[in-house]
């Protein structure tokens, strides 16, 4: 008999099988995610997501008996039956049906399970990437981190590595002393072999011995030659901070439903940025004729009316950028939601603001127009920016179910070719 403690063994033997399952049913899981994303709040970002897919999609077929036919069965717990009694057939789903459903493994129509938030994000944002992320990151190596990189023979006293230095000293002492000591030993042996009365008189030998001893004594315990200094180099760190500007029109023409759609869009963008950046700040700017920086709740729920001057929001964003989020240190993203209304002459002003002071400073600007009407001046002005800037995209959303597909359209990975090229450039192939 032997006892083996397996508790410290690898625990997740089933991980591979679990991943295989998720891989196989990716399309169903994706569908379930797309259905559920609408019901998620912005604060639920890190929660697990429960997924349900139809049981019949994942059942394992085999040759099995179906219902019906003529069966003889034995049951326990007879209370009052006698031979020849007729009893009415119990409703499906109890009694005999119990056994059948346990035979096939599932009783439910839906197979429910939970994805961890990582798995969820992976599937949700599969094949999406932040545009121009790599190139920009290489450009913006702002923070440096000191990291150890071996030892140096030169440096400031505060960086002396004592252990290394003493090791050096010990090694040096051994290396210099040992030939001298060997010689000393030899002389002493020679002295021993002389008859005792001659020992004191042999001046030559005694002189040599004492000279050697002095030499050995003179070897310094520590020498500047031994000193080793910790060496540091500066490793450039890509900045991991991002800020997301949410701009929204809250004029009278934006109703609550339209705002809900915008909210979903912002949530998706937030979760997506969260994946690439450690910290994501969110700045909420709402505007009608004036723009104002507000908190999340006020952004989505407070009601105000008035006309619409979009440029007011852009000006505020520009100010905040200059004030708090220096583009040198921050990855700036912005998403603007609007129903397309704008004061007539203002749209041109927006375009100028964008092209001169906003787009050059930020990573990406996504504009969604939530409306069923034909696009208006703002749309066309933004559209003309597309020719000159590759970090702006505009899309139109008409209903809730468009959000996820539109979001994906914003960040779809570029074609295989460009991916191949960029890998070639970075030397990965």
């Amino acid at each position, binding site marked *: 008999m032997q006892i083996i403690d397996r508790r410290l063994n690898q625990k997740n033997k089933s991980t591979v099988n679990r991943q295989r399952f998720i891989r196989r049913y990716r399309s169903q899981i994706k569908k379930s995610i797309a259905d559920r994303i609408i019901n998620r709040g912005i604060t639920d970002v890190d929660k697990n997501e429960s997924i349900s897919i139809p049981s019949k999609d994942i059942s394992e077929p085999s040759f099995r008996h179906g219902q019906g036919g*003529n069966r003889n069965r034995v049951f326990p717990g007879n209370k009052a039956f006698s031979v020849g009694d007729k009893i009415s057939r119990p409703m499906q789903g109890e009694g005999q049906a119990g056994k059948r459903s346990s035979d096939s493994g599932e009783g439910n129509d839906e197979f429910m399970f939970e994805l961890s938030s990582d798995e969820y994000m992976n599937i949700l944002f599969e094949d999406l990437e932040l545009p121009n992320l790599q190139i920009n990151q290489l450009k913006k190596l702002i923070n440096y981190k000191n990291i150890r990189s071996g030892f140096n023979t030169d440096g400031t006293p505060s960086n002396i590595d004592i252990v290394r230095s003493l090791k050096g000293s010990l090694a040096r002492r051994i290396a210099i002393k040992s030939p001298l000591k060997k010689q000393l030993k030899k002389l002493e042996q020679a002295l021993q072999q002389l008859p005792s009365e001659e020992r004191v008189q042999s001046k030559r030998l005694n002189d040599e011995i004492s000279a050697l001893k002095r030499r050995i004594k003179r070897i310094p315990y520590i020498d500047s030659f031994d000193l080793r200094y910790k060496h540091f180099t500066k490793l450039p760190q890509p900045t991991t901070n991002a800020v997301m500007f949410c701009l929204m029109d809250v004029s009278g023409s934006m109703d609550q439903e339209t705002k809900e759609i915008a909210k979903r869009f912002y949530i998706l963008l937030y979760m997506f940025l969260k994946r690439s950046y450690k910290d994501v700040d969110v700045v909420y700017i709402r505007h009608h004729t004036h723009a104002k920086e507000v908190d999340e709740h006020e952004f989505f729920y407070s009601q105000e009316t008035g006309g619409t001057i979009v440029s007011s929001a852009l000006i505020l964003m520009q100010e905040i950028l200059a004030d708090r989020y220096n583009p040198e240190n921050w990855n700036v993203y912005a998403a603007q939601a609007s129903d397309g209304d704008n004061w007539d002459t203002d749209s041109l002003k927006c375009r100028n603001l964008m092209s001169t002071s906003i787009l050059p400073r930020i990573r990406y600007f996504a504009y969604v127009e939530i409306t069923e009407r034909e696009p208006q001046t703002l749309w066309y002005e933004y559209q003309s920016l597309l020719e000159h800037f590759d970090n702006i995209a505009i899309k139109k959303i008409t209903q809730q179910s468009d959000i996820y597909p539109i979001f994906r359209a914003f960040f779809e990975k570029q074609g295989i070719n460009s991916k191949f090229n960029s890998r070639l450039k970075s030397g990965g192939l």
Partner: protein
Amino acid sequence: MSKKRLKSEKVTASKPISRGADWNYDLINQYYAAIEDIANDFGLDTYPNQMEIISAEQMLDAYASAGMPIGYNHWSFGKHFISNEQSYRRGQMGLAYEIVINSNPCIAYLMEENSMMMQALVIAHACFGHNSFFKGNYLFKTWTDAEAIIDYLVFAKTYISDCEQKYGVDEVESILDSCHALMNYGVDRYKRPSPISMREEKQRQKDREQYLQSQVNELWNTIPEKLQSKDGKTRFPSEPQENILYFIEKNAPLMKSWQREIVRIVRKTGQYFYPQRQTQVMNEGWACFWHYTILNELYDRCHVTDGFMIEFLQSHTNVVAQPDFDSPYFNGINPYALGFNMMIDIRRICEKPTEEDKKWFPELAGTPWNESLTFAMRNFKDESFIAQYLSPKVIRDFKLFALNDDAGLNELNITAIHNDAGYQEIRNNLSMQYNISMKEPNIEVYDVDIGGNRSLTLRHITANNINLDETTSEVMKHLHKLWGFPVKLISEDANGEQYVLNRCPLEEVTDTNG
């Protein structure tokens, strides 16, 4: 049943092994030694034991692979894992106290959460009960090789992951899916198999690859001489084959040799589970009988305290409880309950037979119980065990009744209850309920159109008008994938009338270009 035992007059005689609920290695060793002593006194013949302490998560892992310590990777195991994990987390399901593997040495898992009493119970139940059953029962002796199973599983896992590297995960997964659909049809029920052996397996596998392929080609190259069967048509195979996977492995025309090997792996794994499917009542009954007997003996020998016994009896009673048919907890007949009570009853018949027992079991009444019980354990499976040993007393205790459920009628008909007139019928019906060829549809390889379009025909022989369920067409698709040519399922009723039940592809293909 505990009242008599709890008189603690003997307890003063020696000191119990432990008093607390916590276990440690030293205590496990002491309990094991005490239990082993008792098992030896009763003459239980077992494989050497290997006990592995695992955590609850690892128990869930073990569940997912049906208790196999090593398994190849497949999404279906992931599905089972996820569904077990979900119901465990939501508290809908407790974990089994133990899992035991039919191997030599016999591997039993002890969960770290178990109390000392539970560990002792598991040792008695798994390390001695199940273990001796694996070693003694004829089905296990015939169908499995405890020496080689672990090695074979390692071989299978390595082989399949090699294939995944060579041919891609999707290719391998698709073959495995198809094989799993037919897993229960990978056993020759009436032929004895050659036991799985690792060394042989490895040696032969290389030869097999080439040899098999040549065999298959030969079959398809040569137009066999016309064999005239009764209906005047040529049939291949000349006799229907029940082992569908074996037939595919040997005869599928287009299969590559690695695919044949995978079919074989699934077939062999299925074979490993075949005895377990047929001996659930006996196996659990035997293990329960022995944990009950051994732990009571431990108490009599003053190794355990009263508290230990009360905790034990509570667990034991839960395990062998049989809810009535109209209870919300009813989920069929509990194999632990039926098996345990039948085993206990055999001992009773041997030791204290009544007049009724002497009439029903003349060959059993008054014989040494241990010998008779061991004989029953060795030579029966559930079906025959019930047919042979289900006594009127157990039928009365369970208040068993038989009913006839004919889909053609509106009402269910009670055909027998626990009285003199009903015992025999209940016994026969219950025995049939455990007959694997009644539980699973009777489907065989019937014909292959060798000279023509190479289509494969399976025959389902219906009994009692019970038809196949709706997943059949999915299975046929899998079969089609394996066979590579059209497949057809015909159904034959009691009068010998045949009709086509399903085919894949759906249209009959007459012209094949390979």
